[in-house]
Structures are given as structure tokens and as C-alpha cells.
């Protein structure tokens, strides 16, 4: 498959620092767009544009409440990114498990030698 367009790929969607900022803000709970405008210090059309990209990849959901549109984070859409990092995490975890063994030995040796 050809490279995914910006609007259909979670990786591309979060590549933009402002969009990550929006996700961080929404991680704290549901927010109206005005809140985000204030927090990011951007003009509303720009914030709306970023929100649209995030919505198209499913990273953000929206609902109407009265005259307000409330946005909230949908973490599941970011799972591909999580999985991507996870494999790297696994190789470090394996490395550190070996380090645990070495440390256990050093601790026992130190205890035997009467500490420092």
C-alpha cells in the first residue's frame, strides 16, 4: 500500500507538535474548543484544523452539548504508536533482565564482604 495520507495515519497525525499538545491537553479530560484555543495560544481556525486531523484518525471524539462541541481523547486510535514503541521496549527489557542478574550478584558479594 502507498504511504498513508496525513489524515489517515496515527503516526502522521501525532507528528505535528501542536497536535500532540492537543492530545496532552485532552488526556486531562474532555474540553471545549475554546479551552484549547486558550491553552495553545493559537487562532481558533488553526486549532479546529488540527482537531479535524485528529478526528479523522479517530484519536479524538467530539460530541455536542448545548452550543458547545466537546472534544475528548480516544487512546485506542493511538495503539499502533504504542505497539511500535513496545517492541523497542522489549529489547531493552531483556537487556535489563540480564542486568538484574549481575546486580543481584554484586549485592550478595557486597553483603559477604561486609558492605562498603
Amino acid at each position, binding site marked *: 500500500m502507498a504511504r498513508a495520507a496525513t489524515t489517515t495515519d496515527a503516526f502522521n497525525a501525532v507528528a505535528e507538535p501542536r497536535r500532540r499538545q492537543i492530545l496532552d491537553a485532552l488526556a486531562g479530560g474532555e474540553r471545549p474548543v475554546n479551552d484549547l484555543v486558550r491553552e495553545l495560544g493559537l487562532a481558533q481556525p488553526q486549532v479546529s484544523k488540527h482537531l479535524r486531523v485528529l478526528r479523522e484518525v479517530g484519536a479524538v471524539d467530539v460530541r455536542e452539548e448545548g452550543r458547545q462541541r466537546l472534544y475528548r481523547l480516544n487512546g485506542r486510535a493511538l495503539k499502533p504508536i504504542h505497539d511500535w514503541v513496545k517492541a523497542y521496549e522489549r529489547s531493552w527489557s531483556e537487556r535489563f533482565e540480564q*542486568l538484574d542478574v549481575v546486580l543481584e550478584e554484586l549485592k550478595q558479594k557486597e553483603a559477604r564482604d561486609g558492605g562498603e
Partner: protein
Amino acid sequence: MAVSSQTATVTLPTDEQILITREFDAPRHLVFQAYTKPELVKRWWHANRGEMKVAEIDLRIGGEWRYVSVTDDGFEVAFHGEYREVVPNERLVSTEAYEGIPDPDANATLNTATFTEKDGRTTLTILVEAPSKAIRDAIIESGMEAGLQDALDLLEQTAVSLR
């Protein structure tokens, strides 16, 4: 035995960074030792995926380090770098260059390892700062490929290097 099976936590704070965090059931002077003494590094850095042939460490500012590891199928991977900051038991800043790519030093990362101790346990954080998002992503991606392929393309080489 008190060997934990907890996993390392990896996050991507910015486009160029990787942050690795892990807690160890040992005081930090021991973690620092295991991290900086060649004969000890040789015992864990290979992550059970081969053997470390070389672990040279000249632990002082401007001093160099070099690790060479050979995987079980005979593939050799080498890293080297230079120490920029050395605070015993606390902090280690060094460059890390993978020798399997063109111009390793220009594409090197800057790694900051921090050791903090609490109640006899040590939290180790390693902040990896790459010169670009592309290099940062290639490092992560290689970890993902680890163990899956045998080809000798660049991605594969980096993958093996992370075993």
C-alpha cells in the same frame, strides 16, 4: 531471588528523543558499576542474543568507549562513543554511534543516563537524543524488527544491533 521481571518503559518526549526508564532492586553505586565496568557490561549488554567480544570503557570526560557484540548467527555489531560528562553513581553523558551505517559519528545520538536511588532501589533513566526525527524513528523501528529477519539491509543491521 529478587530478580524482577518488570519491563523498561519507553516514551518519545519529542520528535528527536527516546526516554528509557527502569527500576532496579539495587543501590545506585552497584548499578553504576554494572553500567561502567567492562567485565560487568559484557554480561548484560548483549541481552542474551549473542556474545560481547569487546567492551572498552575509558571513563572520563573525552574518554572513549566501544562495544562489539557478535550474534549467534555470526553477525557483528559495534557501537562507540565519547564521554561528555561523568558524575560517578549519578550521571553519565556520552555519544553513541552505530558503526554499521555510513558516517556513524555524524548520526550519533547523545545519551544521558541518570541514576537515582530511593530506599535502596535505583531508577535508571536513559535519554537518547538523535540528530533528527528520521534517525530517532530508525532506531525505534530497528527494535521492532529485531529477531524477525536475516537480511543484510541497513534496517536489518540496526535491528540486530538492538538485540
